[in-house]
C-alpha cells in the first residue's frame, strides 16, 4: 500500500570516466519496492538524464547489477527494505569495471575474460553423431551443474579483491564458467583450457577470500569452482597432462 508520507533518501553516483559525485534524491518509499524501482523512479520523475542498465527485471538477464550501500547486488531482486539503513540508500556503479556514465559500466573487459578463460564450448560431435549419454548423477556433471546457473551479472567480479589488485586476473565468473566446461565430458579443449586457467592471471592467483561466493545473487560458489581448477590443473601439471603435446 502506498504511503506518500515516507521518503527514501537516495544518494546516487553521477558522472563519467572523467569523474563524478554523489547527488541526493528523495523517493517515495513503498511497501514493496526494489532498488531498480527506486532508480527507475528517479529517472522518470527527478532526472531523465540518469543512465543505468536493466532488461528483464526478474533476475535472469544479469544486466542491472550496481553497488548498493557498498555491496554489489542485482538491483531488480534486491528489496529496499532488506538493504536500506534508516531509509537511506547509496547507489553506485559496480567496482572493478570502467564507468560509461552514471550507473552503467562497460562490461566488455569482463566478457573478454570469459573468452580468455576459454569459456566457450568446444564441440567434439555434430548433429549426425549419437547424443552423448551423460548421467545427471555423475560426479563431473554434478560439479558442472553447481556452477552452470551463472547469469553473467559481474557481482562476483565487482566483489573480488584480486580483480581490484590485478587488472589482468580472469576473475571468478570466467573461472567458474571454465570449471563447468572442464567438467563437461563432451568438450574437446580440456588441456588447452587448463593451460589457460593455470596461467599467471588464472585460478592460482585467487586468494580464496570468498567475496564472490558471499555476494553471488544466485548463491553459486565460484571459490569452490576455482579450487576445483587449482586441484585439477595441479594434478594435470604433475602428471604431464598440461604440456602442449597433451592435446
Amino acid at each position: 500500500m502506498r504511503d506518500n508520507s515516507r521518503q527514501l533518501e537516495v544518494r546516487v553516483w553521477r558522472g563519467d570516466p572523467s569523474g563524478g559525485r554523489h547527488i541526493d534524491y528523495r523517493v517515495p518509499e513503498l511497501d514493496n519496492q526494489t532498488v531498480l524501482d527506486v532508480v527507475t523512479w528517479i529517472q522518470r520523475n527527478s532526472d531523465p538524464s540518469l543512465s543505468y542498465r536493466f532488461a528483464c527485471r526478474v533476475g535472469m538477464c544479469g544486466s542491472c547489477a550496481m553497488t548498493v550501500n557498498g555491496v554489489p547486488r542485482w538491483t531488480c531482486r534486491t528489496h529496499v527494505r532488506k538493504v536500506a539503513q534508516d531509509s537511506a540508500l547509496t547507489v553506485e556503479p559496480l567496482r572493478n569495471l570502467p564507468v560509461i556514465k552514471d550507473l552503467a559500466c562497460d562490461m566488455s573487459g569482463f566478457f573478454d575474460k570469459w573468452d580468455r578463460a576459454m569459456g566457450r564450448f568446444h564441440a567434439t560431435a555434430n548433429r549426425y553423431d549419437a547424443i552423448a549419454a551423460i548421467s545427471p548423477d555423475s560426479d563431473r556433471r554434478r560439479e558442472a551443474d553447481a556452477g552452470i546457473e551463472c547469469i553473467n551479472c559481474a557481482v562476483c567480479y565487482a566483489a573480488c579483491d584480486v580483480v581490484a589488485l590485478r587488472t589482468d586476473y580472469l576473475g571468478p565468473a570466467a573461472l567458474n564458467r571454465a570449471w563447468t566446461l572442464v567438467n563437461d565430458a563432451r568438450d574437446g579443449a580440456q588441456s588447452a583450457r587448463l593451460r589457460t586457467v593455470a596461467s599467471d592471471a588464472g585460478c592460482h592467483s585467487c586468494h580464496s577470500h570468498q567475496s564472490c561466493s558471499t555476494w553471488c545473487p544466485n548463491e553459486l560458489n565460484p571459490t569452490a569452482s576455482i579450487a576445483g581448477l587449482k586441484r585439477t590443473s595441479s594434478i594435470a601439471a604433475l602428471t604431464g597432462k598440461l604440456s602442449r603435446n597433451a592435446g
Partner: protein
Amino acid sequence: MLYLAQRISAMILAPLVLVHLVLIVYAIQGGLDAAEILTRTRGSVIWGTFYGLFVVAVSVHAAIGLRTIGQEWLRLKGGVLDALALSAGLGLLVLGTRAVYAVVAA
C-alpha cells in the same frame, strides 16, 4: 609452475617449522650457550640436512610470496617483478646456507 612450488614448499615447511619451534624450547633448557649448541650441531648430518632443507624451502616459498605481493601491491610486472623475487630467493638461500654451514661444518 610457481603455484605448485609454493604449495610443495609450504608442505615441506609445515613439519619443519613445528620441529624447529619445539627444538628452540628444548635447546635453551640448559641456557642459551653457543658452545653447547655447537657441540650438538657440529658434524651432524641430520641437523645439516634438516636446516639445509629448511633454507631451500624458505627461499622458494618466500620468494614466490614476495613476487605476489610485489605484483598486487606494488603493481610490478615482467622482468622487474621476477628480478625482485629471484634476488629475494637467492639472498635467503645464500644467507641461510651460510648460517647452516657455520653451525654444522665450520
